[in-house]
């Protein structure tokens, strides 16, 4: 059992590139924060110790009164007033460091995901995964603030205590070194080992319980109609009962652990008491550490009372250590993200781990085969902005072909509609057009250049309007400028007007500067798509891909938006993926895909006269009286 835990720690630690590197960044702030934490602890213990000494010494009624006790009186005040400020500074410094680290972490995560082309297609529930990632980063913040820093402080205090005692008595220092060792190392370790399996189980069960609850609540209509009340309750309560049992066992073990820890601490207190009694009591000749003002026995209370506050440093360690199990999961998940710094590791984003487990399809390697034909076609002066798919086939590495021998000519300024059932290969075709992948056979070229070689230049040639175009929580202007960074406010306003949003700007609280996603900017689906359209207008590319941008709109909104889109994008090459035939008569070319092959292709009016199947679909779509 314990071996497995250790092995996991070792494995994660070795692969880790998320926790380790940050220890060396902002080293000064880190050391300052730790130093302040240690000093605060010393002040807390010192306050009790010196107070004990002060009272004992005062009880002797020294002849010069206050003057004899000037030093302890001053120290009590310094410690008493200093400790809170040290703790305060320590909190600020540690948060500063952790927030610094978080900035770096965010950048790293962002770059990882940016680099990983496959991430979005692999993530069935990309939103959930992102939520997990955000949580992981919170966990890492906690890891430092609640586990790493307090542990280091406790260990240093432990060493300092042993050193201090070593000054008086080596054997007793050794005894305390070992005794406290149980508190600061053994207990946390045992806590981790005893509970890690249970905790892992409880966590798995909890996530399972959540999945089941979400599943059943999403399907509540079916449950209520099925009238299977008992099954519903049983299905949901069973995992939760098991979690309860698991948690009860963990709680019981924590209780016992805390109890034993307290007994050990009591033992240490008693040891300090006996040692101090033996060392300082009954032997007036024994050398008192500081001068001849008082009797040595004044130090007994100092040592005993000064020892109590150390419990504050030692006691939280086991509970903190247990938390590392949760953090390990986070680190493991983040380790599975593609690396940004180490060059070659990034090439295979499908490492072991949580992210890879959700993977649906492997990443294809970008082929270079098409590059050879590039120059031939480039030589024969192709038409401007002509997008050509010639005998293109595509298969994901090791998979069945997704596209087979597809040839489409998207003439400049033409409008093409692409239809097909889900899984027909529409998305893959779009990816080939955008150059995300290159075809395994045949070619996809823009002006004779394979689209996969356009690289960073792609957004200058091809714009995409998706079903969900993300609007960022920034000003409307900043959102629009993503299409054209140097767009003036006039240009942005003109684009919004063209997209049919002219009336919207005056209604916004701060016009173009209004931050989206805040109060008063709840756009309807249609308006959101129109903002995306304005962005595309600013981007001003010769080719525009419309990837089902109307799928979640109601029919009348859809028709209005479609009319606007086709009007303002006139003259550009339009490729529209759609699931029905609205606006089909305004297209130059219709293509039906099925199982990766083109099953129907032609001008809509032609197909309407010559193709019975198309007529049937058209009749279905038109609905009435045809």
């Amino acid at each position, binding site marked *: 059992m314990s071996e497995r835990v250790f092995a996991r720690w070792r494995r994660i630690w070795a692969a880790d590139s998320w926790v380790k590197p940050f220890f060396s960044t902002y080293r000064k702030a880190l050391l300052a924060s730790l130093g302040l934490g240690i000093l605060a602890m010393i002040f*807390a213990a010192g306050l009790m110790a010196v*107070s004990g000494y002060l*009272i004992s010494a*005062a*009880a002797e*009624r020294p002849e010069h009164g206050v003057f004899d006790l000037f030093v302890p009186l001053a120290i009590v005040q310094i410690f*008493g007033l200093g*400790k*809170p400020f040290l703790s*305060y500074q320590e*909190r*600020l410094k540690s948060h*500063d460091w952790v*927030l610094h680290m978080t*900035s770096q972490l965010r*950048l790293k*995560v*962002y770059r990882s*995901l*940016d680099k990983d082309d496959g991430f979005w297609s692999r993530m*069935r529930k990309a*939103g959930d995964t992102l939520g997990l990632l*955000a949580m992981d980063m*919170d966990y890492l913040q906690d890891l430092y603030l609640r586990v790493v820093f307090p542990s280091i402080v406790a260990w240093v205090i432990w060493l300092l205590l042993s050193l201090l005692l070593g000054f008086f008595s080596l054997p007793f220092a050794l005894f305390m070194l070992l005794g406290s060792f149980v508190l600061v190392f053994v207990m946390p370790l045992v806590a981790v080992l005893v509970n890690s399996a249970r905790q892992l189980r409880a966590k798995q069960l909890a996530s399972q319980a*959540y999945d089941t*609850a979400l599943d059943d*609540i*999403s*399907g*509540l*209509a*079916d449950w*209520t109609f099925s*009238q299977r009340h008992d*099954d519903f*309750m049983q299905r949901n309560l069973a995992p939760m009962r098991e979690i309860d049992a698991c948690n*009860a066992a963990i709680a019981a073990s924590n*209780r016992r652990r*805390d109890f034993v820890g*307290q007994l050990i601490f009591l033992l240490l207190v*008693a040891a300090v*008491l*006996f040692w101090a009694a033996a060392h300082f009591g009954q032997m007036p000749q024994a050398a008192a550490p500081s001068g001849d003002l008082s009797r040595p*026995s*004044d130090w*007994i209370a100092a040592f005993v*009372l000064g020892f109590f506050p150390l419990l504050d440093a030692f006691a939280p360690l086991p509970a903190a250590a247990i938390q590392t199990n949760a953090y390990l999961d986070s680190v493991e998940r983040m380790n599975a993200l593609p690396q940004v710094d180490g060059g070659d590791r990034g090439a295979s984003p499908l490492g072991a781990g949580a992210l890879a487990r959700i993977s649906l399809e492997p990443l294809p390697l970008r082929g270079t085969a098409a590059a050879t034909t590039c120059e031939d076609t480039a030589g024969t002066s192709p038409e401007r902005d002509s997008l050509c798919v010639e005998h293109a086939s595509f298969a994901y590495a090791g998979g069945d072909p997704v596209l087979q021998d597809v040839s489409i000519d998207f003439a400049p300024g033409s409008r093409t509609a692409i239809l097909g*059932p889900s899984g027909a290969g529409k998305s893959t075709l779009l990816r080939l057009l955008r150059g995300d992948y290159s075809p395994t056979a045949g070619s996809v070229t823009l002006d004779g250049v394979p689209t996969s070689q356009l690289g*960073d230049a792609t*957004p200058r040639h091809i714009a995409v309007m998706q079903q969900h175009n*993300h609007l960022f*929580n920034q000003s409307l202007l900043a959102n629009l400028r*993503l299409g054209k960074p140097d767009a003036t406010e006039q240009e942005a306003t003109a684009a919004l007007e063209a997209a049919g949003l002219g009336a919207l700007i005056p209604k916004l609280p701060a016009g173009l500067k209004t931050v989206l996603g805040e109060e008063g900017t709840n756009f309807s689906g249609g308006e959101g798509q129109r903002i995306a359209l304005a962005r595309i207008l600013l981007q001003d590319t010769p080719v525009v891909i419309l990837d089902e941008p109307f799928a979640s709109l109601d029919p*009348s909104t859809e*028709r209005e938006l479609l009319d606007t889109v086709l009007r303002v994008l006139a003259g550009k090459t339009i490729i529209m993926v759609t*699931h*029905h035939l609205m606006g089909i008569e305004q297209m130059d070319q219709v293509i039906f895909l099925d199982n990766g092959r083109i099953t129907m292709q032609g001008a809509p009016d032609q197909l309407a006269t010559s193709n019975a199947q198309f007529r*049937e679909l058209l009749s*279905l779509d038109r609905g009435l*009286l045809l």
Partner: protein
Amino acid sequence: MLEAESVGPFDKNILQLPGAKRALVALMVCSLLTAALIAGQALGLARALTLLWNGAGVSAIVTPLLVFVACYVGRQLVALMRSRLMDTFSRRASSTLREQLLERSFEAGPTFAHEHGSAALASSVVDGIDKVRNYLDLTLPKLADLILIPLLLVVLIFVLDWVSGIICLIMLPAIVLFMIILGSNAKEAAAKRHAQFNRMKNHFMDTLRGLPTLKVLGRSQAYGDRVFKVSERFRELSLETIRTATLSSLFMDLFRTFALAAVAIMLGFRLMSGDIALQPALAVLILVPEYFVPIRRFSMDFHASLDGRNNLASITKMLDPQAGLSEEADPALSGRGPLTRISFEPPPLRADGDPASPPLRCTATDASLEYRSATGTRQALTGVSFDVAGPQLVAIVGASGAGKTSLLQLLAGFTAPSSGEISWSVGPERICYIPQRPHIFNASLRENIAFYAPDASDEQVLDAAERAGLGALIRQLPQGLDTLCGEGGRGFSGGEAHRIALARALVDERRCIWLLDEPTAHLDIQTELELKQQMLPLMEGRLVFIATHRLHWLRDADLILLLEGGELVQSGSLEAITATPDSPLLHLAAQLGGERA
């Protein structure tokens, strides 16, 4: 967070939980015992230290040391007992809450889930209640300690040394007073800090979610620097708020250590003047830190406890059937389950009546539906009346927002009409509702299809699947009916999911009333055609209601209910409805873009 000031750390809802009163009494007893043991511990230790100071040998301190050790151990034992007790109580209370919440979900049905959000509800069931348990388990004992221990200890300190007693007595109200003065400030700062953390997190999440859009726009690289810059700017802002937010803890810490230093110094002076002996002085010095421990512990995880308390409040609200925000105009009808919101009136059996096939009949009498929300009320349906009997296809059509889905929800009994009545001649076991995107459970394909009839044989399941057009798909799956579906398993396209829902309805032969919400609108046109052709023969002999804006269904419908702005404007056969030249249906057809002559 929002209700922090209104209720304080203690939520009266706790008293409703099973075993709460007994647990609270036990907590009080434990806190009293703890205070007594702390006193014994301090007195014992002070006595032992005083004896040693006086030069006594170790043998002389056995008795006071034993008192100290016994009290120390006793205190830990009390803590152990109390923790076990609270663990049992909180676990029992939370599992009761959980059962009640699930029970309520099942009874109140999909409208309830929709109102609270499925994910939020699921997370309440699992995490939310766990936070409540944590709150009961950890916060309540701390609260009891906070109320009782300082009170008893300060009395003891007074008895030992009135000067120290006064210092302590001044400090505690000072802390409380200070917290109140600083409180509004700190609360504001805490709220601000919370909001800022969330904004920072949201900004990052927002950027990650927008990454595909950024990539398409070719702006993803440039945006990376922004991520860092924004995060750093937020860091500075956050530090500013942390600085003010932790001020309260600084002052509390300051009061505590200041009180300790003051007590020590005053004791020192009074010892020197001979006004007090060493033993009570030491006892006071030991007691003073203990006096502040409860308030420190309590304030340390105050926010976590607020979280738990807020969860308890929101769950209690969810459990209250009167508190529904939107639906349920008639409280008498609510809370008894969706299927009881419609009345079922089996017609009297005729002499030759065949009990296996009762007549199908659905009547709506002046049914209206009003949605209430915080912002006002919205009339979704107004005075809808119809009487439909016998197997037939009824199409409910209208523009979006006309009330199609609302009417279907009324028919399904998910919502009760605000006025009027919906009545069925058969019970819910004969009805089947298929939403626009049917839910596929995380279970095997067999369990999914046999959902309404879990005892169905494989032959029955396969037969239903075949009729729903799933035969080829199942034969192609390596694990056939055992294939896992849903999130963890195989994903299904919209058309496939619909076929699974159809098969589900077919397996249970009693289900002869189908309520279909937009069965084909979101499918691609080829799949739509295919599915429709497959569905039409299955509808034979059934009473089917289809809510749709795809007008091709009208050609197959026996009865059309045309809705406009929540009112039933026309009903009848297609011929009858379109007979008049300015028929609203033709108008709708033009509006939907289906008509382009």
